[in-house]
């Protein structure tokens, strides 16, 4: 064979593609079946925006950020949503006797760690406390899915549609609705 194979070019191309994919894909694609290390401290989600003096913003629990951007956890959260009958009060996110989860209104905060706290602690007027009834990882997965319902996860991590009757618009296409009422610190969600 008379031509030389330009291995340098090929190598460079592969490395570039790999780097791009690594930067974009690491968090989204990781699969953990064991519970990831959870924060042992109780969540410090603030429920009220009223605060004397300067505004303190608490950062989002990094564990929560991981779940929020992970495709597997969001999809599992969707299955748990149906299995644990969240539909019974919240519909498929549109709300029934419980508030809607697809919109931007959050009484007790719409950040993932605030949702996680709401699930585990329960809330006045009917939201049961699920601590002890599900594992911490399951609560994070549900919270991640709930965030996806309002379009607040990466679009390439969200599942598009569920199998079975169509319950929501495709979650890859719902417009992002950052949480509004409730915890003011939720309005300045720190960058992940």
């Amino acid at each position, binding site marked *: 064979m008379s031509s030389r194979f330009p291995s340098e070019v090929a190598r460079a191309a592969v490395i570039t593609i790999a780097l791009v994919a690594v930067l974009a894909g690491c968090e989204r694609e990781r699969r953990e079946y064991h519970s990831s290390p959870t924060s042992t401290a109780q969540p410090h989600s603030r429920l009220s925006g009223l605060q004397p003096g300067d505004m303190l913003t608490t950062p989002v629990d990094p564990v929560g950020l991981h779940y929020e951007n992970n495709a597997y956890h969001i999809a*599992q959260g969707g299955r748990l949503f149906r299995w644990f009958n969240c539909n019974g009060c919240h519909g498929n996110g549109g709300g029934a006797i419980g508030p809607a989860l697809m919109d931007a209104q959050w009484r007790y905060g719409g950040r993932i760690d605030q949702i996680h706290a709401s699930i585990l602690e329960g809330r006045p007027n009917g939201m049961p406390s699920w601590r002890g009834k599900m594992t911490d990882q399951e609560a994070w997965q549900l919270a991640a899915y709930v965030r996806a319902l309002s379009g607040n996860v990466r679009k390439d991590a969200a599942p598009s*549609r569920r199998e079975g009757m*169509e319950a929501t618009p495709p979650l890859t296409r719902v417009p992002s609705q950052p949480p509004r009422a409730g915890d003011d610190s939720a309005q300045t969600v720190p960058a992940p």
Partner: protein
Amino acid sequence: MATSDSTIESQRERGREALLRTWSDRPGFMGWLTTVDHKRVGRRYIATALVFFVIAGILAMLMRIQLSQPENNFLGPDRYNQMFSMHGSMMMFLFAVPVMEAVAVYIVPLMVGARNISFPRLNAFSYWIYLFGGIMILAAFLLDVGPEAGWTGYVPLSSSDFSAGKRTDFWAQMITFTEVAALCIAVELVATILAMRAPGMTLRRIPLFAWSMLIVSLMVIFAMPAVMLSSSFLISDRLVGTQFYNAGEGGDPLLWQHLFWFFGHPEVYIIFMPALGMISSIVETFSRRPIFGYTAMVLALVATGFLAFGLWVHHMFATGLPPLGNSFYTAASMMIAIPSGVQIFCWIATLWTGKPIITVPLLFVLGFFALFVLGGMTGVMVASVPLDLQVHDTYFVVAHFHYVLIGGAVFPLMGALYFWFPKFTGRMLSEALGRLQFWLFFIGFNVTFFPMHILGLMGMPRRVYTYPSGLGWDLPNMIASLGSWVIAGSVLVFAFNVFYALRAGRPAGDNPWGAPTLEWATLSPPPPYNFEEMPVVRGSEPLWPLDTDLPVMTGLAKDKREALLTTSTDALPATRWAMPDPSIWPLWSALALTVLFVWSIFSPWGVVWGAIPLAVVLTVWFWPKRSEPSLGGGE
């Protein structure tokens, strides 16, 4: 007379120099990137496909290590599932079809006596698209984003509910890459075989390898759109929430299976039928007589091609379709054994009545007989609905398809590589190393895959990352795993043989085997212009008897790139057709299309915005050039 001889000789020398100037590529790296020479593209295609073969083979060996013992923990379930999905996808999409097409890309224009393949820039584009698709899926696999739903990707397992993230999206898009590449080559081969044959090469004189590639290319054109459609539906379901495969909203998971297998069954014949053509070339050459029953052989190829489209439901016997319908597909699947039987008879008859010499290519063909016919027998078994309901999705089927794919396609491919290596490179591969490779491969293959028949009948399903002890599966699995190392040894011998021969192999002449077809009528390796003058064909074995002069037709220009187009049935000269110069635009187009495809994995807007650079580069590529129009008539 001496004077006129040397005048003729110096004229010919000037002609060769002119042809070299006209048909050579630019020097160096730019030449490598811009070439439209079918031989250079074909060689790199073969080399890339063999690299994917080795990678997929290593994945298989890792899987066999995991399965060598029950309840092993060498690989976890996620990693194992990705590996068998990658192994199957790489072997089917990145090795088997491309390597057969690549050999055809190199050989068919030479075999029919043409200067180049019909659409040279499309040919180059096809390689780049194939390469980029392969790199994409390999990178995805290395980053733990590889396919995880098998090479068949059944829904709902591959839907976004059950296959989270972008794993399946990369896989589905890889299918799009490889199908575009395959379609390009199929179109080129059909045009080359129907319009660019040497004068006098009537239909009755077309070599059987070219016939098989013609039929395979037509099959590709009919079959590939089905899988492109099904994978596009899947991407659409996963990306924008369409309901094609969602039973709850009026779709059906079985739709995927029908569409996929409508492609998938012809696909395995697309892989295997070029090998049938290769076998004919090898048997003919080494029996030293034309293949017996040419007409029956061609009709058998055509029948196989047609019947292959009527069998796909035999992959779905367990899905609950109506039993009478299933029985129809049993009958059709049995029927396709008849043309294969005809071909086997004709080859054996050729050997029976010829003067066979056992060289390494023929040895691999003999291996084909032993292995493929066994695979065909198990194929008849799985064609039967009740028996298939037992062995479907078990190791019996794994054994069956490896016997027909490796025995039926890879063995003849190895024979063909040994056969045509002298033509590709001008050097001979070592016969001794070839025999060593053959026996290692043959023995290793049987040790690996024969026990799998037993395993399947004894209840071991496929696609399992482990199995319990106590069911008697332990020892056959261990034996199969040991066999895989022997196969690996044979691949190493082959690699060593190739690299050694490239450096220090015995120089081959134009026609070291004394073969009859036109590719052997030129230098080894052929010059960029293939033939000095267009050969004229007077029989189906143009070079036999050996050492008789081959008539040629002069008249094609030597100072610009031209090809001779002839009529489809009788190959009468019809037109002189301008052929393209080397061009960088196929590479740019492939890059633009890659950007579009990869972007659309992540966002549907990738289709829209990615189409803009693609439109630009395609426009530049196809912009009409200010050159002489092609000349019609008989001048």
